[in-house]
């Protein structure tokens, strides 16, 4: 994309002495501009830091649990009252169990929150990637080729939009549970990723299609075509690099919505199955006991809230940073 200057073309260095004395103007790429803007956005950076901390905590969950001496699967019924509620204040918070224990079975809440973060972030991340890949490929194809390909892909997106997605996904997840080969923990995560990602792709698909429609008429695309570049090259070497900004922004803003969807599935009982820990499922368990033990409801709720909020903050900041009109 760089325009060759005369100096380079004829290979002489006529302009060199002047250039050396003149003030050097450094060109900055869109990415560099965005990064410098993002760095100044303290709220977005705070969101980013929390995300990094969360990811590290999720990755190191087994190590952290060992260090703290907590176990996500061990029952501590001895710490429960006669009504199977945690003894002590605030849901049984103690040195051994920093966030208290679950009612009914006395499992450590901190350990389950840490392991729940793994489930939540893994599913949300993979589903985002899946939606992104299908959406970008479909969006670029529809926007670039137009015609009947565009018609088919656009109608397909309309139809997926018209699905009552949450309802349909729940039904699908229940039915699939009947298939023995798919009932294992990893397979379950795979299905959740597929369902969340599959219903998510039309959103990015539409955005990318719109972007492609506007940039496919740009001069540099025409130049590439007149130099004999094939469709593949134009799509992936000319168009795709110019779509990085919307893709990045979209991905960061899809993460929180996917985290919420995964939590909603677990809340409704169709997410990952016990004993695997998940935040939505903890909330769902807490529904029966929150009148007496609100701590068990508040802690996983806050975990979801903080995670989603950080991604939203960071995503908002990223969008503003990439916005060409957002000069500050």
């Amino acid at each position, binding site marked *: 994309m760089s325009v060759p200057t005369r100096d380079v073309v004829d290979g002489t260095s006529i302009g060199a002495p002047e250039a050396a004395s003149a003030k050097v103007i450094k060109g900055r790429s869109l990415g560099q501009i965005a990064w410098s803007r993002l760095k100044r956005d303290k709220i977005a950076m705070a969101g980013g830091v929390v995300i990094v901390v969360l990811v590290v905590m999720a990755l190191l969950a087994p190590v952290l649990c060992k260090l703290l001496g907590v176990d996500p699967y061990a029952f501590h019924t001895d710490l429960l009252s006669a009504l199977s509620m945690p003894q002590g204040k605030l849901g049984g918070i103690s040195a051994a169990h920093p966030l208290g224990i679950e009612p009914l079975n006395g499992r450590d809440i901190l350990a389950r929150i840490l392991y729940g973060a793994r489930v939540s972030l893994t599913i949300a991340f993979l589903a985002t990637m899946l939606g992104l890949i299908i959406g970008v490929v479909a969006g670029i194809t529809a926007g670039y080729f137009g015609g009947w390909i565009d018609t088919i892909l656009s109608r397909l997106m309309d139809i997926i939009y*018209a*699905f*009552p997605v949450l*309802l349909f996904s729940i*039904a699908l997840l*229940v039915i699939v549970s*009947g298939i023995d080969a798919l009932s294992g923990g990893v397979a379950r995560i795979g299905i959740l990723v597929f369902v969340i990602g599959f219903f998510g792709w039309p959103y990015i698909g539409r955005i990318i299609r719109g972007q492609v429609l506007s940039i496919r008429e740009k001069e540099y695309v025409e130049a590439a075509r007149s130099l004999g570049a094939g469709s593949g090259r134009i799509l992936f070497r000319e168009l795709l690099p110019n779509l990085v900004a919307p893709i990045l922004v979209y991905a960061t803003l899809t993460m929180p919505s996917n985290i919420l969807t995964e939590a*909603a599935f677990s809340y409704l009982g169709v997410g990952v199955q016990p004993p695997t820990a998940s935040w939505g499922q903890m909330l769902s368990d807490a529904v029966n006991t929150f009148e007496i033990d609100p701590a068990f409801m508040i802690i996983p*709720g806050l975990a*979801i809230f903080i995670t989603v909020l950080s991604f939203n903050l960071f995503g908002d900041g990223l969008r503003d940073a990439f916005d060409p009109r957002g000069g500050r």
Partner: protein
Amino acid sequence: MGRYIVRRLLGAVVVVWVVSVITFGIFMIVPKITGASPAYLYVGKISTPAQVQAVEHNFGLDLPIPQQYLNYMSGIINGRTVSDGNSTSRCSAPCLGYSFRKNLAVTDLLQSHFTVTLGLAIGASILWLVGGVAVGILSALRRGSFFDRVAMIIALAGVSLPVYFTGLLLLTVFSYGPSWLRLVPDPTFHPFGQDPLLYIKSMILPWISLAFLFAALYARLTRASMLDTMGEDYIRTARAKGLSNRKVISKHALRAALTPIVTIFGLDLAGLLGGAILTEKTFSLPGLGALAVDAIGLQDLPVIMGVTILGSMFIVIANVVVDVLYGIVDPRVTYK
């Protein structure tokens, strides 16, 4: 314009039809893969293979799937007579099947549960439209002010809160909290027809939790849209003409800024009318969403089909209505 509407409506019918085919297909075919007869989906676990066969035969489940689909579709237009071998029931058009689990026609089930969902959606949408849009406009007009900052922090928190968590928090505080805060001591649902006052009392918390989520979203959208509009050239022109600030905002800015909000509102409302699953579950409201989740738990296929088709119908109709309204609100839009 008339032709445009007709064409869009035809398109909408096609989309609902495709959704119905996909739903029907998946719920018919997947049980085949899992090896369980779809008869189980109708009447639950039955003990002997002979009984399964009898049920399959009575429901026409032994017919080829396309034939079953045709029967289902003709039921919507002509009604059909359904039998489980012991009793026969007439299901009049539009017949979306018969739930043998509940011994009711799906259409009747949908009707009775829809009123609850409708009440929830209308109450909540009034709250969020008034609250969210007003806050969004004020925030945009006072950009960077203390009000703007606080409002946007609350709004961002609002969109990050799962609706069921908000609901449970509200219940903890206002139904089970300290006695002086116990404003809704009895959160169980009371139908409007029974006692309007109790109905409103039982719906306040669901309305607020649902409205808070959307109000937060709408405040952010309205603010962004308003800021975009206020930066337009014609606003500067209006000011240059010497119009008062009030006139510039009310006559020139608001109309353009709120047009996209109308679109989004139509689609959100339609989405909710198909069942606000999470809110209904949290507050045990007997709406469409709760009906569907129950049906899924019981594997009551006709009900699942009914709610899915109804839900997608709301969405595609809303799409058409919104596009037509768009042309009325925004004179730059023309229909081809």
